[in-house]
C-alpha cells in the first residue's frame, strides 16, 4: 500500500478495517506493516480522503 502523507488526516479509521492488522496509527503517523499487508485494498476503499492507494505491482 502507498500512503499519501499530505492527504492523511491520521484518524485511524483504516486501522479498524484491516483484516490483517497490518496498520497502526502512531500519534499522527500511519504505519503499514508490509509483511502483514495482503494488498486487499479495503483500507484504500474506506479512507474518507483517499490517502491510500493499492500497490499495482504486487
Amino acid at each position, binding site marked *: 500500500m502507498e500512503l499519501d502523507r499530505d492527504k492523511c488526516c491520521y*484518524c*485511524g479509521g483504516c486501522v*479498524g478495517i484491516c483484516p490483517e492488522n497490518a496498520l497502526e496509527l502512531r500519534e499522527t503517523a500511519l504505519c503499514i506493516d508490509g509483511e502483514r499487508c495482503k494488498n486487499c485494498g479495503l483500507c484504500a476503499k*474506506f479512507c474518507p480522503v*483517499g490517502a491510500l492507494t493499492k500497490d499495482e505491482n504486487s
Partner: protein
Amino acid sequence: MKIPDYDAVVVGAGPAGSIAARFLAEKGVKTLVVDKKQEIGTPKRCAEGINLGGLEKIGIKPDPRWVTSEITGSTIHSPGGGKVVCKFSKGYVLERKIFEKHLAMDAIRAGARYMVKTRAIEAIKEGDKVTGIRAEFMGEEFTINSKLVIAADGVDSKIARSAGINTTNKMTDYHSGFQYEMAGLNLEGHDMLHLYFGNEIAPKGYVWIFPKGKDVANVGIGILASQSEEGNRARDYLDRFIESHPETFGNSSPIEINTGGIPVSSSVDTFVMDGFMIVGDAAHQVNPIHGGGMAIAMKAAKLCAEVGAQAIKEGNVSKERLYEYEKTWRETEGVKLQKLFKLRIFLEKLNDNDFEKFADILSEEDIIKLTNAEYKSLFKTFARKAPKILPLALKFLSG
C-alpha cells in the same frame, strides 16, 4: 523504564477509558490509563452531539467549560427537501477536546494514574490469560503487569486483536466519516441537529450539521464504507453538499477537518476473556442508526468497571466472572442496539422515493419511537399509508 504492577490497566483515555478508570479508582482499584496521544482529546473524531440522559446516567453535570450549545431536537431533511421536526429531551453539542480532558482529570482526582504519549503495543498473555501489556513511551519499551486489562482503544481496537478477539470492522458495518468544523455559517435553527438523507447526498448514511453556536457547527458526513470509492468518498460527497447550499455555507470557512471510522454492527461477538475486557468503540458499542457512541461507551464503561472492580476484589478475574459485564450489557443496551441494527438494514433497503414516502407519513412521535427501537405501532401506519413498504418492514423489524 520500570512501571509498578497495577490492579487494572486501561488502554485509551477516550470517554470509555476515562469513565472506566474513574469508577475503578472510586472502588479503590489501583488503576493506570495509557493513551498514545500526547494530548488527550486531540484530534477529535466526533460531531460532539450527546443527549442530557447520556451524561446524567453516569453522574456528569453539563459544564459550561465543555458545553458549546444546547439542543432541543433534530430536523430530518428528506431527499426531496421535505422536513420533519422532532423535539426530544435536551441535548448538547460539546467541545469534546475539553470534555475528554475533564473526564481524565476526574479519574485522576478519584485516584487513577495516567500516562500520555504511551502506546500499548500488545496484550501479554500466559496461556489464555491476559496478564498485562507491552507498551512504549518516547522510544522506550516496557511491560506493565496487571490483574485486569481493559481495552478502550477505540476503532483501532488493536489490543483486543492482539489478545485474540476479532474486532475488525466489516465494510458493510462501518461508516466512513468526514467533517469540517466551520465558522461563518448562516444557520437556520441553531438549537436543532440537522440531518440530511438521500442516495445522492450520503449513500447509506447521512449528512449532519451540529451547531456549536449561532454561526459555528460541525458539518459532516458518514457513508457506508462499502459505498466509498474514488471520486465518491465521504469527502467528495460533503464537498458537493456544501457547494450546493450557498445560502448556508457561502460566507463560511473550515476551522478543523476531522475524519474517522464509525462501527455500526451493534457489537462484537465477545467482550471478555481471562483478565481482559473490551469497551466502547473497540467493542463496536455504538448506535447503528446515528453512529453516536459517547453515551453508550460511557454507560458500558461504568458497568465494565463495576464488574471488573468486584472481580479484582474477589481475586477472580476469570472469563466466567467477567462475563457478568457482557451478559448484563447484552440484556439491556444490547437488545436495543440489536433492534436498531435491524432498523439500519431496513433503512438501507429504501430508495429515495421510499424514503420520501417514509418522511411523509411518519409523525414526530413515530420517528421518536423508531429511534427508541419501538416498532410495533408503526406497522399499522405502514399498512394504512405505505402498504408497499410493509412487507420489508415486517421482514426486518418484527420479532
